[in-house]
């Protein structure tokens, strides 16, 4: 048992060193300024680091199975939120609005309803 515990402690040191190496890679990778490498080294490695911490430091794999299911469910809900909202948030234009570089601008609807109305008589019978 104590040998097993010793092995655990030894592994903690090894995991820590791996995390530091991954940190260095995640800083150096984006310096190449190649988009694919930036995505892999910054965000891919972040995922690997998070998984290492969860498994080796939090011991999530040693907890009852339902704990992993609960955590995964929360992550899935987060992705559902992203999938449900992002198509709208990431649109560049919509009804009566258009997004420019820095903000959303009110963009009035086509003026064909009012264009022929005599001045001072409102927008007609619409």
């Amino acid at each position, binding site marked *: 048992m104590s040998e097993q515990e010793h092995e*655990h402690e030894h592994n*903690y040191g090894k995991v820590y060193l791996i995390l530091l190496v991954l940190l260095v890679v*995640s800083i150096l990778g984006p310096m190449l300024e190649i988009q694919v490498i930036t995505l892999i080294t910054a965000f891919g490695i972040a995922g690997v680091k998070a998984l290492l911490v*969860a498994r080796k430091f939090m011991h999530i794999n040693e907890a009852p199975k*339902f704990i992993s299911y*609960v*955590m995964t469910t929360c*992550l899935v809900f*987060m992705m559902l939120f992203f999938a449900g*909202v992002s198509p709208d948030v990431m649109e560049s234009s919509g009804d009566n609005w258009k997004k420019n570089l820095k903000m959303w601008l009110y963009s009035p609807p086509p003026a064909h309803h009012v264009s022929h109305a005599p001045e001072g008589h409102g927008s007609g019978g619409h």
Partner: protein
Amino acid sequence: MRPIATTRSASGMPTGLLAVWWVVASEIVIFGGLLASYLMYRLSHDSWSEQAANTNTAIGATNTFVLLTSSFLAVSAHAAAEKGDGKKAARYLWYTIGGAMTFVAIKSFEWYTEITHGFTITSNTFWSFYYTAAGIHALHVIAGAFIMAIVAREAAKGLELHRVELIGIYWHFVDIVWIFLFPLLYIAK
């Protein structure tokens, strides 16, 4: 007789451990929603990269190193507590608190520099997200350090050693959140 429930028969695990995992689950939704929102706006606003270029990667990387080290110290405290060595566990927890204080000190310096350069929470949406995400995370670091101090005090007397693992799980989660905040706020420019 202690007036608390120490185990849950349905889950088959200690109450404290179950509670801390529930805390982590709720935190996933809180930080997950925040990070997902940030990602949506970041991807749809090219101008955000101009603002992100003003964050200091060296400071962000230093803080990542500090948090990873503190996580290692927290798990070392857990290993000591499992062996029943309360004094050693407490010592590692105090080192972890030192890491938390270093993180907050560096963050304070960073924010001071940014604010004095005119990048405030109201400057634009990028900075609003930046201060909100990093600020909520920093509050978690401070709260964790406080709880850790209470656990360390008891652990030094050889009491409630199971709590060392509980605060450790919370601390590693705070570390994981930063692992994702770092590339989002400091690397993707």
